[in-house]
């Protein structure tokens, strides 16, 4: 144990003096979370503003005085769309969709025909997509009002249009509504972990080969597995430091959030933060072991970096699996690193019942993977010299 700690101490000291490793650690630890939170807040702000601003862009509003009257009664402001609205939508100078009303709108309406209106947007201009739903809703309300008036004039009850009374009943669990937002953050934190110890892992394995220090190192009377564990401890420590600093940076980051809703939703309690760190701890150890195992076969930093990219690419793909699945989570999700941690975090944040299997499955998977990776590293450490 004393030997393992001595190796870990040396590796940690070496990594802390490495500019590349430190840059990665500092950037991720200090700026990762604040950036993420500000990004979320700004996104929510943008959506809320679009909903709140109650302005619609219309081309040809003079052709539809009834509609103008209706819209103004709803408290909306109507703005005339510029003549070149198509170009402006494509060049993203316009961020709202444009409602186009033809000249014969009123005539057709008066004669009981169905006039066509167009909602014009550019799919590539993502901002315009947010405004489509309120605009459609407004049009539907207008159509309903017209239908109700027509039926009333003919002495028919407007209720004929509403044969079914549809109401939403929300099954919010004990629920903290911010749980989903928080679990997105925990997923981001996991992806941060994949990169956090990467340079340290490469330096401690492929770096040793590149600078020729692995050969003299292996001439010491120390078992390979002792080296593997010592190096792994150092990389894991760095990774977990990034996680702890990232979690701690949530407090000051919340001061930078401008959106009040997000600010309230992202208020983590001390116990939630502690739980987050504890859930991520086995994952941090597992990822570090995998990074070293992947990098040990690289003869140079560059080669090892190319190999380690595999992990950086696979991690988001794994996490995306959980985002795209439909319905209940399949059982095997419990045994997939990253997904299982995220599942567990979501359950904890939602105050759902957490079973022993929920708790143990991610730990068991991480331990098995870490042991396999360490065994592989210690085996390769001497073989790469032969």
């Amino acid at each position, binding site marked *: 144990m004393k030997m393992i700690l001595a190796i870990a101490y040396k590796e940690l000291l070496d990594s802390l003096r490495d500019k590349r490793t430190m840059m990665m650690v500092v950037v991720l630890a200090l700026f990762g979370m604040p950036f993420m939170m500000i990004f979320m807040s700004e996104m929510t702000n943008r959506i809320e503003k679009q909903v709140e601003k109650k302005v619609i862009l219309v081309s040809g509003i003079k052709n539809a005085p009834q509609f103008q009257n209706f819209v103004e009664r709803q408290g909306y402001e109507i703005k005339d769309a510029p003549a070149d609205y198509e170009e402006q939508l494509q060049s993203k100078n316009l961020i709202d969709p444009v409602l186009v009303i033809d000249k014969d709108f009123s005539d057709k309406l008066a004669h009981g025909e169905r006039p066509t209106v167009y909602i014009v947007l550019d799919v590539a201009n993502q901002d315009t997509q947010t405004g489509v739903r309120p605009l459609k809703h407004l049009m539907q309300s207008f159509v309903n009002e017209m239908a109700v008036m027509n039926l009333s004039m003919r002495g028919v009850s407007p209720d004929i249009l509403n044969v079914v009374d549809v109401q939403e009943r929300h099954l919010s669990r004990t629920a903290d509504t911010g749980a989903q937002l928080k679990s997105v953050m925990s997923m981001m934190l996991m992806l941060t972990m994949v990169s956090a110890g990467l340079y340290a892992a490469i330096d401690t394995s492929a770096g040793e080969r590149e*600078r020729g*220090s692995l*050969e*003299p*190192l292996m*001439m010491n*009377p120390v*078992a390979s597995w002792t080296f593997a564990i010592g190096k792994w401890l150092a990389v894991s420590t760095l990774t977990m430091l990034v996680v702890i600093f990232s979690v701690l940076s949530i407090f000051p980051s919340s001061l930078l959030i401008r959106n009040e809703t997000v600010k309230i939703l992202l208020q983590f309690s001390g116990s939630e933060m502690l739980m987050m760190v504890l859930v991520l701890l086995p994952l941090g150890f597992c990822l570090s072991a995998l990074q070293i195992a992947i990098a040990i076969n690289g003869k140079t930093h560059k080669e090892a970096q190319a190999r380690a990219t595999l992990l950086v690419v696979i991690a988001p793909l794994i996490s995306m699996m959980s985002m795209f699945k439909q319905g209940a989570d399949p059982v095997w999700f419990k045994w997939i690193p990253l997904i299982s941690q995220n599942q567990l975090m979501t359950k904890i944040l939602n105050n759902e019942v957490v079973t022993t299997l929920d708790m143990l499955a991610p730990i068991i998977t991480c331990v098995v993977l870490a042991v396999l990776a360490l065994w592989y590293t210690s085996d390769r450490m001497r073989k790469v*010299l*032969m």
Partner: protein
Amino acid sequence: MIVVENLSKRFIRPSTKRWSRSKGEVVQAVKNIGFTAEDGKVTGLLGANGAGKTTTLRMIAALLKQDGGQILVDGVAVQAGEQTTQAKMGVLSDARGLYPRLTARENIVYYGVLHGMSRQQAHQRADFLAEALDLKSLLERRCDGFSQGEKMKTALARALVHDPQNIILDEPTNGLDVVATRALREFLRWLRSPEGGSKCIVFSTHIMQEVERLCDDVVVVAHGNTVAQGTVGQLLEQAGETDFEDAFVKLAFESKAQLRGAV
């Protein structure tokens, strides 16, 4: 004391063709090398480039597994990957392999700890070696930017931190200037003396001058075979030459012809 008997080692050189099915070319790096390096003596492994010196030293250091033969260090058989004999040896490998972000002292102390010394003992030993190798001014400096000589001295101090009885040096004078070479020679002489602990020193080189001036015993290696062994005087006599370089060429290259003839 190090005893090497009938050592052989071959490598498979991977095929250069990426999609080739061939397993690669077999290279017999060491065919039959044997010698005895005694305590209190400097034994030189002399040979041209590619003669098999470094491969032999790597096998003695338990880094490589031999295909045949045996190596005994102080009577204990060396087994690749096993640490039993490594504690008895201090090896300065061809790749000096210092940690550039650590100071010379940190490099030395780290290896001391890996050899089971306490930090305090390792620090004391680092101070002693720094004095002996004229390293004191470098001790607290990071190794990044060290000259070849400074790197060699630091790596040597690191290899000797646990005061091993057997010292193996792979081309230690590579890249050193005259002054540094002389200083190293003096230090090795001191190590083989009773005051220095009568160490068993094996060092490989292809520089005749080094061998003439320092070695008590010389093992001439050519094409993976031991072709001659003895003192410098004995080898001159064996070759019938007065110049050691001529003697080496005769012994190494005539032996090659003889070996070819035998085949």
